[in-house]
């Protein structure tokens, strides 16, 4: 009995962490290049919206994900132009974009689905890697929507690119000292543009996972702060991919606990568990949990 509950808990922790993993790993790349995207929230929302619309029209969740990526692209380009070309305040533009996207998606949803409709859209089939899924006891953990495995794959790719390739080194250098990086002949501006677009696409995938694989419909403002939580995960993860992933899994577990604790006979206020990631992140940025080493040129515009 208890083992079963534990397995359900682990499986749902991972499932709830997937949107965060997508968004946070994208934001990690962008922040290593020196750019904070407060607009991750808006990008996820746009991804969720595009994913829902795309899937509803085509009937195919895979094409829906494609539509989500297309929908999020203009938002990411807008953020990139504002921060890189116009050197605008990254926090302020991000919040502006979030308000804008909330309005656009709410309006678009009403126009497309009609007010208050809750039409379900087809989701992904459950899929599990060969062998792993048929393991005794822990097998059910690997019964996840196929898109979840894309997240795992992308994390491995990001970790490899960031630590083992020239692109990763230039990108991190652009976030630490863009001027020296530029003098050494690397295309800082291009790298920074690319990093923001990448963060946008990743957030779009996270949003699409929410609407297509998780909720099976779009609701107004459905990301409800997950995007901000992704930024929190990057901070709490101290701008290191391994720890960022760990933070996302921990936040996913905290969310899953809300539904699981009553089953274990423990009664805690929900709000405490929802608050937990933010409190932990606050302690982390306050320097009470280890030293924080943010990229040195984080949130600073670059120009020659």
């Amino acid at each position, binding site marked *: 009995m208890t083992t079963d509950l534990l397995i359900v808990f682990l499986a749902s922790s991972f499932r709830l962490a997937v949107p965060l993993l997508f968004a946070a790993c994208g934001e990690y790349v962008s922040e290593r290049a020196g750019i904070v995207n407060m607009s991750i929230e808006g990008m996820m929302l746009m991804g969720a919206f595009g994913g829902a619309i795309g899937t509803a029209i085509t009937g195919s969740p895979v094409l829906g994900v494609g539509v989500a990526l297309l929908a999020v692209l203009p938002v990411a380009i*807008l953020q990139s*132009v*504002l921060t890189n070309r*116009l*050197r*605008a*305040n990254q*926090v*302020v*533009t991000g*919040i*502006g*974009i*979030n*308000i*804008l*996207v*909330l*309005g*656009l998606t*709410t*309006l678009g949803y*009403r*126009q497309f689905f009609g007010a208050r409709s809750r039409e379900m859209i087809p989701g992904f089939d459950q899929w599990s890697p060969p062998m792993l899924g048929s393991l005794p006891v822990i097998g059910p953990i690997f019964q996840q929507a196929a898109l979840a495995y894309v997240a795992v794959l992308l994390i491995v790719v990001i970790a490899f690119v960031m630590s083992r390739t020239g692109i990763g080194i230039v990108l991190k250098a652009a976030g630490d000292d863009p001027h020296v990086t530029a003098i050494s002949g690397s295309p800082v501006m291009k790298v920074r543009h690319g990093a923001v677009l990448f963060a946008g696409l990743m957030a779009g995938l996270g949003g699409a996972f929410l609407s297509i694989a998780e909720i099976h419909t779009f609701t*107004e403002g459905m990301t409800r*702060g997950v995007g*901000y939580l992704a930024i*929190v995960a990057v*901070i709490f993860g101290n701008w290191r991919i391994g720890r960022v992933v760990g933070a996302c899994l921990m936040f996913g577990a905290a969310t899953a606990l809300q539904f699981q604790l009553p089953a274990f006979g423990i009664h805690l*206020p*929900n*709000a*405490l568990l*929802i*608050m937990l990631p*933010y*409190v932990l*992140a*606050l302690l982390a*940025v*306050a*320097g009470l949990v280890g030293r924080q080493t943010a990229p040195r040129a984080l949130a600073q*515009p670059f120009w020659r």
Partner: protein
Amino acid sequence: MNRVAKAATINRYRGLRTLAGQLAVPVLAVVAAFAVGLIAVMAMGVPLGDAIGAFLNGAFGSPYSISASLNRAVALGLVGIGFVVASRAGLTNVGGEGQIAMGGMMATAVCLLPGVADLPAGLSFILPLLAGALAGGLWGALAGVLKVRGGTNEVISTLLLSFIAVWIVYMAVQSEALLRQPMTNSATLPESLPIPPTTQVPLLTGSYASPVTWGLPLAIIIAILVAIVLQKTLFGFQLKAIGLNPVATARAGMSVVVGIVGALFIAGFLGGLAGALMLQGEQYSLKAGFSSGYGFDGLVVGLLARNSISGVIAGALLFGFMRSGGISMEMIAAVPSALVSIIQGLIVVMIAGAAYYAEKRDAR
């Protein structure tokens, strides 16, 4: 032309040019954003006249709607003034929402304390207002302390503190041990008891047909006071100095610690006051999410104002009336009030995007 002559020429034109320049960007942004809004209305196939009529009716149509818009503008204006104070010291306060939440919650708690409702001479509503403002102020000052202690970026800390505050309110109205009204049956809503009538902020007209509260004159006085403090006092100068160069400010013998903590305390204090006013002047009982959206709207107002208090007043009125108009547009003309969010978002993006060019031009 040598540098001195060039500087003299620039100075001659700068007065006029900066005023026009400061107004040009926000005005153009607002006009362009509204134009996009109108195009969107047409694209939805709603007759323009209907939508505009409903919008104006909701914003200005009756004493009630004007009062509601003004009350909203008061809350947004207070948060906006706080944003400007913090921004004078080079700080970006994104924590308006949490400061409102803490203010509203503390005000409710004090209103419901036994004995408070019977206090004489207006203290019955002034004390909770002060308590709310103080709670917001401490919530803001916390970010200031983290900043001077460990260099924690205030953008991140105020944002995190906002989320925490919103969930604290949620917890408070979910638990009978905290602020939830006694559960008499399963349909008892998760909100606080209504606050006693004597703790409500009195209405200017005394009539619920035009429920604008004494918060309006209070906010105007605060706006004037803050403008004077920023322009004419040593503290105002200290904030400006910190904003320009904290190291030089410390060398000059002024306290950076006091300035940073003080600025965020004031920002939080005004946010907390806004929350207390919303609670005691309009909503009368604490509900989860009561602060929703006000913090970011107030931030946008402060941002639009580009550091001027008169700008905050204009922006607060604009957004106060816009939100009310938007709600009416949705109810009467079936145009989703999300359109107001689109217009607001566009305004923020355009102004922030133009900021660099505006500064470059001013510096030339």
